[in-house]
């Protein structure tokens, strides 16, 4: 990277360390923190959306839709999330390829499942075999995002469903008495009012989401855990920067990263919570009202 790093074997001490931390692979390691943040940035709104849909479905007066909502929200109860993380990406991958297989190769007569293998015609492969490596990575990442969004959507649906039930019934009835339709009550009263009740659950969920991000590694995405293991492993003399097993230190960096994320999130949520409980008929809102002169 730098001219002075051209010959690592001649370097010592701090210079060696600086050059070591500036190698190409380390830059990939640093960008993988971005991957984690990207995952958080995409998954959080997406799962909130899924959760919203799930919660509204679970409240629906249309029975099949309600069953679907209740089924979705209770999906994650009783089963470890990691089962879903392992299941959803393969299931989705095979599902998509199977659908493409049916539409693209209708003349293909052999069965898709042959004993121990899953065979679709070459055109149906996702992404196509000829696609450059980067597309395979993006596809893998998107499958991971979907798995996260589905699981956390179910969690969020649980939280939002509870929050919708917590909105004082009198408020909804008052709105009805003013002549609002069911849809208007939901949009104008229920949804704006529920956030203050949903916030503790959602903040909890965000913390859980942060702590679930290392599972990306299990889904084959080159995330921070992947690079920490890769870079920390013992490097013999044939490498430019030989060093003993440093995985412990790399994992300590990851630990510090996650602790920092937790601390920052806690501070941010304390502020949001204060903002949301302003003027609310809750204990928090009452305390704020008394504090302001």
């Amino acid at each position, binding site marked *: 990277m730098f001219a002075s790093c051209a010959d690592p074997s001649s370097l010592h001490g701090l210079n060696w360390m600086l050059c070591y931390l500036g190698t190409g692979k380390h830059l990939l390691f640093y960008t993988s923190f971005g991957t984690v943040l990207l995952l958080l940035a995409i998954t959080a709104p997406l799962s909130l959306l899924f959760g919203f849909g799930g919660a509204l479905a679970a409240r629906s007066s249309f029975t099949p839709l309600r069953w679907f909502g209740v089924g979705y929200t209770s999906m994650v109860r*009783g*089963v470890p999330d990691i089962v879903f993380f392992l299941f959803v990406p393969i299931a989705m991958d*095979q599902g998509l390829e199977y659908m493409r297989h049916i539409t693209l190769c209708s003349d293909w007569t052999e069965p898709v499942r042959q004993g121990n293998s899953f065979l679709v015609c070459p055109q149906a492969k996702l992404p196509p075999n000829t696609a450059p490596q980067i597309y395979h990575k993006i596809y893998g990442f998107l499958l991971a995002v979907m798995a996260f969004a589905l699981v956390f959507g179910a969690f969020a649906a649980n939280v939002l469903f509870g929050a919708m039930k917590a909105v004082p019934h009198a408020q909804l009835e008052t709105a009805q008495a003013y002549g609002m339709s069911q849809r208007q009550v939901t949009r104008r009263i229920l949804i704006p009012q529920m956030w203050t009740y949903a916030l503790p659950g959602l903040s909890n969920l965000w913390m859980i989401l942060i702590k679930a991000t290392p599972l990306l590694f299990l889904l084959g995405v080159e995330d921070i855990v992947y690079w920490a293991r890769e870079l920390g492993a013992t490097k013999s003399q044939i490498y430019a920067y030989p060093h003993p097993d440093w995985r*412990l230190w790399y994992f300590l960096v990851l630990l510090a990263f996650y602790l920092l994320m937790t601390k920052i999130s806690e501070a941010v949520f304390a502020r949001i919570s204060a903002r949301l409980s302003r003027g609310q008929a809750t204990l928090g809102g009452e305390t704020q009202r008394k504090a302001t002169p």
Partner: protein
Amino acid sequence: MSDHCLQIIQDYGLRSLGIGERALPRTDFTLCHEFTLIGSGMLWNIYFGTIALAFGFVFSVILALGKSSCRAWLRKPSEWFVFVFRGSPLFIQFFLVYELLTMLPRQGIDLLGLTVETSWLTRAWAGATIVLFLNTSAYAAEIFYGALQAVPKGDEEAADAYGFTGWKKFRRITWPTMMRLAWPSYTNEAIFLFHSTALVFFSGFPALRQQGDALYYANYLADKTFNPFVPYPIAAFYFICLTLIVITIFGAINRRLNRHLPGATKKLRIKPQIIR
């Protein structure tokens, strides 16, 4: 159930413990194979969860008391312990502790002329149990701390009025109420703990001789058959059964804790939705 399946259960029923057939099947997987292997792996999940929960209960109460102590040298370490273990992913903790344990000298530590073996610590049965124990201790400590703070003031004042002091007051008054208040949340924590045992063989700890937990075998079968639609639902089924058993046992304890209260059969609200 056919004789064939009985034979498979005999061969692979305790495969996860290293008893029975050595080689895992490679082809011709039947539903019986999948149920037997994943069920055999479940033994590990039960083992990890039960041991960690049993030891974690004691330690978490100590931590909760430490956290509510007015002496800073007791409070600060407890607070930090809880923060570190609750603030970081269990997955990273597994990796970190595994690396830490592998750094111990291979030949054991010389202690006053006695050689203390250390290699067993890097095995999943010991190392992973320690991590799960520390992790659940931190989460449960937070629950018990919250319950301790929520013990009604009147209870304490009444105890003072009756002349209870020190240990006796804690044992007879504070402790039962604290347990009663904490129990619903603690039930959830127990469920999450059993769920998080599924992470063990996907983190730093290797499965020796392919002796893994339920999810390890589910993953193996899904890899071998290219069909995720059978093994994962089977693993899910086993976990749901385990969850129901946990709920039953903890519900019985909950009823016992609340037996002196009118309308004591208050139902436990189970909302397992926390992962680490």
